[in-house]
């Protein structure tokens, strides 16, 4: 992975976060322009595909027609106004907005538009970090156009020309602020955020809006009466340290003050995540089994936690051993379903271990996850896949019946 370090210490960076507006729903509106201005929800199955009438008009499914266990993949702003958001159970959404239009998800179309908008951006500003199907970071620091607003306007126009879709962009000095800022003026927004704007524009936001403060941490912060980013910025560092540990407390404090020096990583997503440990003395797989087993299991648990924290699933699990003579060997196994489950990781790594020479002592053991895929992307795919092809042994599906 090639990383672009913060270019120069003296000059602040210009990092943009670009987020497509209600992406899946907007792609659907391109196909069905007659739905513009109406609440539309993507998340149906192919039986909810619109039916074309002889006169050329289309009959759409309504949310109230939906029966099943699926969830809303995305909704238009009109549907959001009725309280329907992504990841909500579709049946529940139907109660809130029974008359909303229901459409099946078409990931091939979304991927097509995703690559169109990314290509359009790269033609103007080539240093981008791909964050998934509908968002990217762009490093504009070295861009010859020094008028940031003008540059962002150009990018928005290029995206619009390439896709007929709108996006929201925020340019700030780092990824954290840019990501927060792109939400501020949605849809079709353009926000330039400077340090001076932090108290007025960032501090009023709920802590959970910060990328890196998940629902659990947010709940914990709220319990400490820290509700907004401003509360967090003013919070006692010792109190934070007591509840969140030193590292995360430091990070929380820095984040609340809008500090973030992560570089733009143009290599796309992480390639692998690993955990390893060197023993105090060389160990033998069989003779030191009692000592080795918990170490091995813990490595797998930590790897699982790393994956979950970073939001990845791994298709390939591997192990690394360094023998007493420093010879290093690796083994891996590829799963058909990517995982972040500690039990599956332990089991798979155990399989790998069976394929190596365990008669010799070794000094280091490592477990590695590769073939990474963003869990959200997989879950979306998986949801769709399961809606199409149910499992025979699915607990909910019962005995071979849907």
């Amino acid at each position: 992975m090639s990383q672009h370090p913060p270019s120069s210490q003296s000059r602040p960076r210009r990092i943009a976060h670009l987020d497509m507006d209600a992406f899946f729903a907007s792609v659907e509106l391109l196909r069905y322009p007659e739905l513009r201005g109406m609440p539309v929800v993507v998340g149906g199955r192919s039986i909810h595909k619109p039916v074309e009438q002889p006169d050329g008009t289309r009959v759409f499914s309504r949310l109230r027609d939906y029966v099943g266990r699926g969830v809303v993949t995305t909704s238009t702003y009109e549907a959001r106004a009725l309280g329907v958001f992504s990841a909500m159970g579709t049946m529940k959404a139907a109660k809130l907005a029974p008359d909303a239009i229901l459409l099946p998800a078409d990931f091939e179309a979304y991927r097509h538009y995703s690559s169109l908008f990314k290509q359009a951006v790269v033609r103007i500003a080539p240093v981008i970090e791909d964050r998934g199907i509908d968002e990217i970071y762009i490093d504009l620091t070295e861009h010859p156009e020094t008028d940031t607003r003008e540059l962002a306007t150009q990018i928005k126009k290029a995206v619009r020309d390439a896709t007929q879709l709108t996006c929201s962009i925020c340019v700030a000095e780092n990824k954290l602020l840019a990501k927060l800022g792109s939400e501020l003026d949605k849809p079709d927004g353009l926000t330039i955020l400077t340090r001076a704007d932090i108290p007025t524009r960032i501090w009023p936001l709920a802590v959970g809006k910060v990328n890196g403060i998940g629902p659990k941490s947010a709940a914990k912060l709220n319990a400490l009466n820290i509700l907004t980013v401003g509360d967090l910025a003013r919070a006692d560092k010792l109190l934070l340290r007591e509840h969140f540990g030193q590292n995360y407390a430091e990070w929380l404090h820095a984040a609340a003050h809008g500090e973030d020096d992560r570089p733009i990583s143009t290599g796309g997503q992480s390639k692998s995540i690993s955990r390893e440990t060197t023993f105090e003395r060389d160990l033998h797989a069989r003779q030191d089994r009692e000592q080795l087993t918990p170490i091995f299991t813990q490595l797998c648990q930590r790897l699982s936690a790393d994956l979950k924290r970073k939001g990845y699933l791994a298709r390939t699990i591997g192990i690394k051993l360094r023998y007493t003579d420093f010879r290093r060997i690796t083994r891996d196994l590829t799963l058909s379903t990517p995982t972040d489950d500690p039990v599956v990781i332990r089991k798979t790594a155990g399989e790998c271990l069976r394929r190596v020479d365990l008669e010799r002592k070794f000094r280091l053991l490592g477990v590695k996850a590769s073939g990474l895929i963003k869990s959200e992307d997989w879950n979306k795919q998986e949801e769709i896949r399961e809606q199409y092809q149910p499992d025979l042994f699915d607990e909910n599906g019962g005995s071979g019946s849907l």
Partner: protein
Amino acid sequence: MKFSVSREALLRPLQLVAGVVEKRQTLPALANVLVVLEGEKLSLTGTDLEVEIIGRVTLENPGVDGEITVPAKKFLDICRSLPEGSIIEFLYQDQKVTVKSGRSRFTLSTLPASEFPAIELGDNDLSFSCEQAEIKRLIDRTSFAMAQQDVRYYLNGMLWELHQDSLRVVATDGHRLAMCTRPVNTSLSEELKQAILPRKGVIELARLLCEPEKPVEIIIGNSHVRAITESFVFTSKLVDGKFPDYERVLPRNGDKIMIGNREELRQAFTRTSILSNEKYRGVRFVLTEGLLTITANNPEQEEAEEQVVVDYAGSPIEVGFNVSYLQDVANVISSENLRITLADSNSSALIEEPDNSDSLYVVMPMRL
């Protein structure tokens, strides 16, 4: 140690054995084949610690007994590239193996036989014998449905379920299931015994069973399964896990029964599959009196439609399937017709041969 043998007599067992030897090995002896001579009985062993195969040859003339390991791939390549009908002389002396034939001469590196890992069988072993054809049929009828690298690791293999007078095997990847039962006297004292053979072991074993009428002895232990014939001994580790309750997913309430010509259906599946969605492989079955219409379409808006005249008198029904699963079943069934039993569009389908079938297949429908 010394013996001579014809190229053809050596080649077949050597090929079988070299099949399990993996290219990347950390234990150096695992890249080798173990050669053991006792009187006129020559045996060749290869292993990857999961699966072990011993190929057996009876020599025409006894040699000098002994045991040694040599690099499997090189030994095989040498034997294979010698002219047909060659006589191969094998001599082990001073830590070196010399292979001679006519005017060709090769010296191979060796590792002592003591470094070659042996798989130990446990206690509580159960053994029975049957024709090789029985085991071969059980595997051939079902192995396509085994999962591949599923996180539910126990699906990456085949369930062998022993009853007193039959052997039943079940394979499933969670979306379809294949089951075959053959009458085999297992001399089982308990009511039932289950073992899961790993995928690789199943595939290797099927490759070995090529003398249908000759017997094979099967030994099932707690952690291993072994199959013994005149020409080989096959051993595989068992998968340590619990196979899901397959009985629970066998459809029982289907009342819509369709019988159609297998070959016509197979061809219709193959043709419609061309225009099905490459990822989901869905096709739509519309079954009306005497007629099955199969349609498929893909994201490019292309469409396929096939009509097959079938024997069907039930009420009209529409159901979606992954066409690959249907193709797999139509390919292993050999009878003239096949019977599909359905209950409704949401319940799994039962596919069988209409008469005296030892096999059955369950396919979960797709939502289309």
